[in-house]
């Protein structure tokens, strides 16, 4: 069995597959139980990718159109629409915290964007469509403010993130309801969004054949790239991981822990508000329900993607994988026409199993 995998030139460690070949060589030096363990370890370490591939294969066999171009573009665009909020909340989880106010922050941002970019303004009667750059700045400022309040309360009063964001979640919800009651709007859904706004977000980036790729896919990629740079290449990113890993160590090393926590939450707030800005245009109908429960999927995606609640662990690539996996499963179940009631159960099981498998990587075996 082993002989079959060994090629005559396997000793030459050059070329694109040298890592894989080195692994195969290493595998050949193992025997019996160790070899078994090596295989299971490898399977578990790459479990997330294996699950994705298996899921795709299984669904594609049952419903071949699942892997059609338009379906793939759909999955990618749905993933893109959920990525920014996950990128934001991931930072909070790396700090060994969480943020359950994320969904309501998305909602508030969407309401503000919608109210300033509508052709039939009832919240501010008589006010026309505002310039897009201004609105983007306002929305980002609101997100940053929400994040600042979260981060400040956490860092200053040493409150648990769950408590702080539970409070802000409620405050934000009330704010949204009050905001929608302003002017002549009377709690009604915001619609009649300006073409410019909808185009900027949901307009066509380019078409592959007849399939249009929406612009927000590009924006999500840009945001992921920016977050990658911040996480890996800046002092803030490094400090974030250090604080999440051991706050005391960061403190005695002269890291401004409070500033780090606040900035990470501000960053998260900005990501939520950008998500809100996108969702407003994508769904084109904004009310008090917009953003409801968004944090649940975002947090699940992060944890599935290996951002540990223990703190100090997480990768941007993992978050993208997590969001993608959740989306593939949701969309796939839809393609499979699974009974709606069963969907909840499957969703719960997927999150549980994926996290259990991921956690296994960090367990130190004795």
């Amino acid at each position: 069995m082993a002989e079959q995998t060994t090629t005559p030139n396997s000793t030459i460690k050059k070329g694109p597959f040298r890592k894989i070949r080195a692994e195969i060589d290493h595998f050949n030096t193992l025997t019996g139980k160790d070899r078994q363990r090596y295989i299971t370890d490898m399977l578990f370490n790459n479990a997330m990718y294996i699950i994705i591939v298996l899921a795709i294969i299984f669904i594609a066999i049952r419903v071949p159109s699942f892997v059609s171009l338009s379906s793939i573009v759909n999955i990618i665009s749905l993933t893109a629409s959920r990525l920014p909020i996950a990128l934001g909340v991931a930072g909070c989880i790396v700090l060994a915290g969480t943020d359950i106010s994320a969904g309501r922050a998305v909602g508030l941002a969407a309401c503000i964007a919608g109210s300033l970019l509508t052709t039939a303004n009832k919240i501010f009667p008589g006010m026309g469509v505002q310039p897009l750059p201004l609105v983007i700045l306002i929305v980002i400022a609101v997100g940053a403010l929400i994040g600042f309040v979260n981060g400040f309360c956490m860092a200053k009063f040493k409150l648990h993130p769950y408590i702080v964001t539970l409070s802000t979640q409620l405050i934000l919800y009330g704010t949204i309801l009050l905001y929608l009651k302003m002017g002549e709007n009377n709690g009604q859904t915001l619609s009649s969004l300006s073409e410019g706004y909808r185009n900027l977000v949901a307009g066509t980036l380019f078409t592959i054949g007849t399939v249009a790729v929406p612009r927000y896919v590009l924006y999500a990629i840009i945001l992921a790239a920016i977050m990658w740079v911040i996480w890996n290449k800046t002092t803030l990113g490094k400090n974030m991981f250090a604080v999440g890993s051991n706050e005391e160590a960061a403190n005695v090393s002269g890291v401004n822990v409070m500033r780090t926590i606040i900035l990470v939450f501000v960053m998260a707030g900005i990501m939520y508000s950008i998500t809100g800005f996108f969702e407003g245009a994508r769904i084109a109908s904004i009310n008090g329900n917009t953003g409801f429960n968004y944090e649940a999927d975002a947090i699940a995606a992060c944890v599935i993607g290996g951002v540990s609640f223990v703190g100090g662990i997480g990768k941007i690539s993992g978050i993208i994988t997590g969001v993608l996996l959740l989306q593939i499963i949701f969309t796939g179940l839809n393609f499979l026409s699974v009974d709606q009631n069963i969907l909840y159960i499957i969703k719960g099981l997927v999150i549980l199993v994926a996290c259990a498998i991921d956690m296994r990587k960090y367990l130190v075996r004795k």
Partner: protein
Amino acid sequence: MNVKKVLALLLSLCMALSLAACGGGGGDAASGGDDSGSKPAGEVSIFYYTFNDTYLSSVRSAMDSALAAAGVNFNNYDGNNIQTTQTDSIDTAIAKGASILAVNLVDTGSNDAAQNIVDKAKAQNIPVVFFNRSVEESVVSSYDNCAFVGTDYTQAGKMQGDMIGQYLVENYDAVDLNGDGVISYVMFKGDEANQEAIYRTQYGQENADAVLTAAGKPALKFYDETNTNRYLVDQNGAWSAQAATDYMQTILSQYSEANNNMVELVIANNDEMALGAIAALQNAGYNSAGKTVIPVFGVDATDAARAAIDNGSMIGTIKQDAEGMANAIVTIITNFQNGNDKFDGIDPGYLEGTWRVNIPYSVYTGE
């Protein structure tokens, strides 16, 4: 140091309290002018299943102004879509000495929640008016001073189905994009466990089919024949636009004119979901000016939906009369206060038995 902390704490407490005072101000503006004398003028407590429902926001606004005009001392409570929350605030209101309870029930899945409220009210001899979300006759009839103001919740679905059927008969060939003689449709359900949603989902399609068959056309076909439920539901039970957008977007990646299997009709339990579906259709190049319009139908006639119908991106909706409902509730409340018969002054045509007032729906397809 400590003194400062205490001061800060007191200050924030004061702020919170003054905010609360502001919020509660709506009701107690005009508490005088009570000439009833039969009952002490306790507060009229109104319990909404949530403040976050577009249609009920309209009802709430109409009620607020009608009650204020009638000089009634009242207070609104948000159930936040949780029955426990609502029941708790009802307990508090009763303890506070509420004179009348108006309840927009959260849990319509069984009689228990409603019966529980009736029993509590009965024990204190406080009249109860249920409204909007359905309560069964047995519950309402178990207490003399109890009434229900709602709509015949099968009616919205039936009217929507009839409207769809008529529209299709009139525009059959235009709607049947692939010309196979059958209209394929999708149905968006607001909440898996809600009575209203269940009946709208059922009758929206059945009545449309009845009209089609009567006109000699084949019945509607669900776009995905393997889906035996024949609907897609908002997993959060929030009747949300976002759920519809995501479903529609996924559907459109699989079903298109190019594949000759395009979804030709969208039926939604409410306008939110209809608008959500329209957003996805618009992103895919439909339902805008000069583009093919996939007929989309909703229920509620919200301002946004009416705007969409007026600009042609949506076809029709069913109007619930928010003001009519508010006025009926206020009438009953004042009847209870003045010791009149509870249904005095209500159009007898709206009455069902001795327990219920049905506010009629109407079709809205543009002005």
